[in-house]
């Protein structure tokens, strides 16, 4: 892990993004202030056209805000020039896209090595790439071209590519959107394990309310703004009552509702006011295996299930060990640091 600069990996103040379309000014983002802590697992949700992609692009340094302040890992990136931003993207952010975005001409290994082409640190490129591919369970498929891999495997290659420069944040734009539920679950498990075992901050855009319900924190975006209290209710109501039947998981609706409510933070304050969630059950003990076998009995396993397993379980454990408000900071280093600053 790289050195942490300041308390929040992402800190924005009054972030704005306006477009001029003809004579009309489009306010894609308006006054977004939010904080994301190191090691948080956060989802950005919102209806189509709400500006969540714009927000993700700005947070991912792919785009610059029209106004406001954005501090990423202690560095003000809101007014950086293109090549500085490119460096920041290269070093601090790993992208995972919905459509994988692998180069079809190149092997898995070469795809993973691509960010190193633009990095200063090119030492042991092959070894490092093989290592991260091994980490995502593709150690035996280094030479395969993307078309020789399944969708889930391709997304794993993409995750490995995101990891090669050991970034602070992994930004995933609907990472399971193009996958069947089984591969989706595997991918989600990898992301969760990166979050919990490696302490990576995960920021994810999703449409899937099932996922949204299970993620520790949701940032909801409506009309270019962080959702108001009232709008959080809408997010709540998104929850599909059928979900429980479909998933086969016994997860009380009330628990997830309250979870959501607390974690959506309209004030841009990333601090979590968490309450104990008692009634989360988890049918799996082996939470983060990427092996296909442990999921095979499950008829409808989905990305959301993986999250439920992970965070449901962890929440329980965490509540015993950590004071309230720190339950998601499962990384020990993280915990210590948070402890000091608190």
């Amino acid at each position, binding site marked *: 892990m790289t050195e942490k600069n300041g308390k929040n990996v992402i800190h924005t103040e009054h972030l704005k993004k306006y477009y001029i379309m003809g004579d009309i000014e489009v306010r894609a983002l308006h006054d977004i202030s939010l904080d994301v802590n190191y090691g948080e697992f956060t989802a950005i949700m919102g209806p189509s056209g709400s500006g969540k992609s714009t927000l993700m692009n700005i947070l991912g340094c*792919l*785009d610059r805000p029209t106004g406001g302040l954005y501090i990423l890992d202690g560095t003000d990136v809101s007014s950086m020039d*293109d*090549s500085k931003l*490119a460096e920041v993207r290269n*070093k601090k952010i790993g992208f995972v*896209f919905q459509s994988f975005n692998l180069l079809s*001409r190149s092997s898995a290994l070469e795809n993973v090595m*691509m960010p190193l082409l*633009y990095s200063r640190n090119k030492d042991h490129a092959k070894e490092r790439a093989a290592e991260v591919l091994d980490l995502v369970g593709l150690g035996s498929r280094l030479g395969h071209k993307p078309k020789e891999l399944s969708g889930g495997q391709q997304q794993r290659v993409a995750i490995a590519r995101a990891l090669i420069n050991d970034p602070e944040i992994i930004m995933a734009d609907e990472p399971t959107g193009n996958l069947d539920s089984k591969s989706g679950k595997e991918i989600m498990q990898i992301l969760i394990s990166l979050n919990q075992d490696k302490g990576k901050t995960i920021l994810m855009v999703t449409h899937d309310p099932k996922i949204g319900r299970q993620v520790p924190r949701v940032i909801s975006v409506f009309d270019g703004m962080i959702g108001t209290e009232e709008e959080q209710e809408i997010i709540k109501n998104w929850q599909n009552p059928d979900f429980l039947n479909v998933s086969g998981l016994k997860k009380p609706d009330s628990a997830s509702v309250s979870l959501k409510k607390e974690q959506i933070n309209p004030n841009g304050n990333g601090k979590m006011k968490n309450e104990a969630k008692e009634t989360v059950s988890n049918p799996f003990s082996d939470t983060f295996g990427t092996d296909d076998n442990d999921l095979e009995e499950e008829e409808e396993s989905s990305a959301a299930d993986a999250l439920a397993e992970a965070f449901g379980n962890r929440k329980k454990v965490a509540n015993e060990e950590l004071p309230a408000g720190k339950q998601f900071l499962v990384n020990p280093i993280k915990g210590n640091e948070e402890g000091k600053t608190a």
Partner: protein
Amino acid sequence: MNISTLIIEALRNLLSNKVRSLLTMLGIFIGVGAVIAMMSIGQGAKNSITDQMSSLGTQTLYLSAGNFTENVRNPQDLTNSDVEAIKTLGIADIVAPTVSQPFTLSQSNGNTVNASVTGVIPEYLEISNYEIESGSYITQEQLDENSMVVVIGSEISDSLFSNSNISVVGETIRISGQPYTVIGVLKSKGSSTMGTSQDQVVFMPLSTAQNRLITRQRNTVGRISINVKDSVSLDQAQTMIENLMRERHGIFEGNPDDFTIMNTQEILDTLNSIMNTFVLFLGGVAGISLLVGGIGIMNIMLVTVTERTKEIGLRKALGAKKRDILAQFLVESSVLSLVGGILGILFGLGLAYLIAYIATMMGTELHASYNPLFILGSTLFSVAIGLFFGIYPANQAAKLQPVIALRTE
């Protein structure tokens, strides 16, 4: 990104679209090929011309009466005594005066031909690079005796004596009504550089020409060829002869010469520069096709950039800077045109040698010739074309905003 990675990447991209890359390359291939072929042929032609010129002997001066560049009143003719005076300067191996005039030649079978009849001395054969096919050349005795003999070129022989079975030597031809005995036939030399036939010549002893045939003024000579000794520089010899002739012709200081000295070296230099211009002109014309090829590259690179917009977006998202993208596409277009250029060079040389071969087969002696610097230049030039025509598309690619590029399908 280092250059080898870039080149490997570029080759892979080009190979992933083989037909398109090949067709694009074809433009450069044909362009470079045409330039190389044209310039090799031009260079070859230039070489053969200068070779012919220097075979005349670069140590030769030609002195003739009259001034070709300035108006001189009553220019004096060159005479036998001028020849003797030049000989006494001691700077020349051979001083060969000639006199010539066109005549109609006829033969008893009724054949006639128009040709320039030249009176020469025996040494002239040496200067003029003719060889005897049959019979013999003019001898000193014949010169002394004003003998009525001629040596004729192969073309004259063919025109006058249609029946080639009989030996031409010993036959009689009539020039201006006078009978002359053919004592020799010259070997064919082919066309001269300037396109005139060198086989349509008739030589007779100088004395015969002066006294019997061209009798305007008995001691007059038309032109004096002076083969300067190797130990004397051509310029030095030219100055000496100039001074001698001015003195002999009584020309006052400041007045123009009433004679002209042609220096083969000067002619060679002039011819060289003309030929260089010619070669460059040929190359320039062929270069237009190279330009078209370059535009083809630009076109395809623009298509490629549009096609790979998403890839560009991805690369940018993963940390590629503007200059990385720029370099990637520039290297790609350069590699494309370099490969096309190298193949084009080989093709052009092949074509040049083929043309030369065909031309030689058809009777015009021509050799293709190339200059290694030329090849290097063409190679660099094709890279430069790739770079130049790649700049715009590569810049288009580099300018793309990552967000927009990533969104493109």
